[in-house]
């Protein structure tokens, strides 16, 4: 068993409300990612679960039992810190052994456990070194080993890959997924990197300014964002948002364009809306059943694809195109829109209006 649940977490630091009613439900054995920009309260949430943060409001439940007042040691959790927090005076071996020493395991048990985990993470040759003699990637593995050496109720990970270079990060992403699968344990993983969230998670909770915006599978969060903010935060290049309103069977843009009104929208005429269009649902190469007139603003070649910036009125649309696409800025063009995959948001509340009709 290893379920983690928080209910209405509240925490303020002086005048800053870090957490404002954070309620999460992490099922046993899941890879649960808390995603949000810096300052969203992700780390505070994790520290609250760990018992390192005194809460103003709310409760933490571990395996269904209220653990809000428990000290960290009693919660049976393991945590990987963003800056690893390896004990500088201790060898790698002693760092990894620390959770077992704290629990008074015999030295033969400790030796066996450290050996097992260090071979799993390929750090056997580092055991006699001290943290200062390790590279960033090695420190990261040791921090991971210190958490994985026990079988706690759940693993908490606070942006463990942020301080690694890109290549190593991609490698460790695969490795973490592999470890999660082989252990079958509960992971609560905090990150501001949406690629990590989308590629590793079973469940994603999107956090903003201490409030949960949406909880769902990566596909749900990407395909059916609950609001305009989630749509804008998840996805790269970011979703393009155009102000518009419905008028009979048409959508009329603030910039003067018109599109057929999508079948699934129920928004009444005249209500201010935002039309959300992802780069991959737009095209400058194909013809579609619906299109927007604009002019070429710029090209961003990214190797495997090129992002075409198209100016529609005063807005810039990001359009995904093949790397071979060419054009000169100022050139007039039509952008084909896949309206079945478009999103509509209420311009006032930012909430998605796409759900109802689909």
């Amino acid at each position: 068993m290893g379920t983690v649940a928080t209910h209405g977490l509240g925490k303020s630091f002086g005048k800053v409300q870090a957490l404002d009613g954070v309620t999460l439900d992490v099922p046993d054995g899941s890879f649960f990612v808390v995603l949000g920009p810096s300052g969203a309260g992700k780390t505070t949430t994790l520290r609250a679960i760990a018992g390192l943060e005194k809460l103003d409001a709310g409760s933490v439940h571990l395996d269904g039992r209220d653990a809000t007042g428990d000290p960290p040691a009693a919660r049976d959790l393991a945590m990987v810190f963003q800056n690893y927090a390896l004990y500088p005076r201790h060898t790698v071996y002693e760092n990894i052994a620390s959770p077992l020493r704290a629990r008074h395991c015999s030295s033969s048990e400790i030796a066996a456990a450290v050996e097992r985990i260090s071979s799993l993470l390929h750090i056997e040759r580092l055991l006699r070194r001290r943290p200062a003699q390790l590279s960033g990637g090695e420190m990261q593995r040791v921090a991971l080993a210190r958490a994985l050496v026990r079988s706690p109720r759940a693993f908490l990970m606070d942006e463990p890959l942020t301080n690694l270079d890109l290549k190593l990060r991609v490698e460790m992403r695969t490795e973490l997924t592999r470890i999660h699968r082989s252990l079958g344990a509960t992971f609560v993983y905090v990150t501001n990197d949406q690629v990590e969230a989308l590629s590793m998670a079973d469940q994603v909770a999107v956090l903003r300014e201490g409030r949960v915006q949406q909880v769902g599978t990566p596909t749900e969060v990407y395909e059916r964002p609950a609001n305009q903010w989630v749509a804008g935060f998840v996805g790269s290049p970011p979703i393009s948002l155009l102000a518009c309103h419905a008028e009979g069977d048409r959508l009329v843009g603030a910039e003067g364009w018109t599109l057929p009104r999508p079948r699934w929208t129920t928004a009444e005429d005249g209500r201010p809306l935002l039309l959300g269009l992802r780069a991959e649902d737009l095209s400058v190469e194909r013809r579609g059943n619906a299109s927007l007139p604009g002019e070429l603003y710029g090209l961003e070649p990214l190797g495997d694809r090129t992002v075409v910036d198209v100016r529609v009125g005063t807005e810039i649309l990001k359009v995904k195109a093949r790397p071979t696409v060419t054009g000169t800025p100022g050139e007039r063009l039509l952008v084909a829109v896949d309206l079945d995959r478009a999103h509509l948001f209420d311009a006032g509340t930012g909430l998605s209006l796409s759900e109802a009709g689909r």
Partner: protein
Amino acid sequence: MAVSVNEAVSPGPVRDHPPPARRRSGRGRTVLEVALLTVLAVVMLFPVLWMIETSIKENRDVYAVPAKFFDFKVTLDHYRDVFVASGGGRSTLSVSFLNSVIVAGVSTVLATVLGVPAAWAYSRFAVRAKKDQLFFILSTRFMPPVVVVIPIFLMYRQVGLIDNALGLILIYTAFNVPFTIWMMKGFVDEVPAEYEDAAMLDGYTRLQAFRKFTLPLLVPGIAATAVFALIFSWNEFVFAIFLTSSDDVRTAPPAIAGLIGGTTVDWGLVAASSVVFALPVLVFAYLVRKHLVAGVTLGAVRR
């Protein structure tokens, strides 16, 4: 990024700024610089030199006119007199030195034992009105200690702490605790709190986490702080002379001062006891000099 103490306390000399470009490497000092430094050294060191010379001169050489710099007979009689009474047995001065060791040692230990955990708490926890509390603690050091000698004397008389080693220990501890808290807080701030967080998740209690993982990293800072507290207690004169009177309790500073003032002054004895008095602090500071320099600069650099 957080700097670990290991990285911050490099074994080599600590230098905050690159040396001025004017000072070229090696023997780059100008003649003028050397001359000025020599003058300064002579002026500063002459009293010390004279104290040492006087302590090993025979009494008639002490009063010799013109003064004898080199051609005097060396004697260690004065040093013997510091420790051994004229009739044999312990001298009163040696008792004073022992008192000084006890008073300075115990008050330093007390100030450290009280101040280090307090500094840790102020550094780690959200204490209500923390800045005001810290300012209040510091404010006790704003006035010259002499100001409170009379009130303390009157209070001590009521509770029977006059002419009592405990009285001196308490007052020195009271003066050193604020200093210890302030200096140690700087050191604790430098040690990332994550070590303790990690230790607590490993299964240690908060206090175990502090003792096992933070405290060892604070040792250089504690050494530096304790040396300063020790020097203050060891050198303190005003309270010692007001609050103690008997030879059994008196510490070394008032005891040495008491040697001056009779009809004849045994300058050799005064000088010898002064040397004996100065030596322990010099030796101690020399032994921990690495910690001292690292400690002072480490505590001074704020994140």
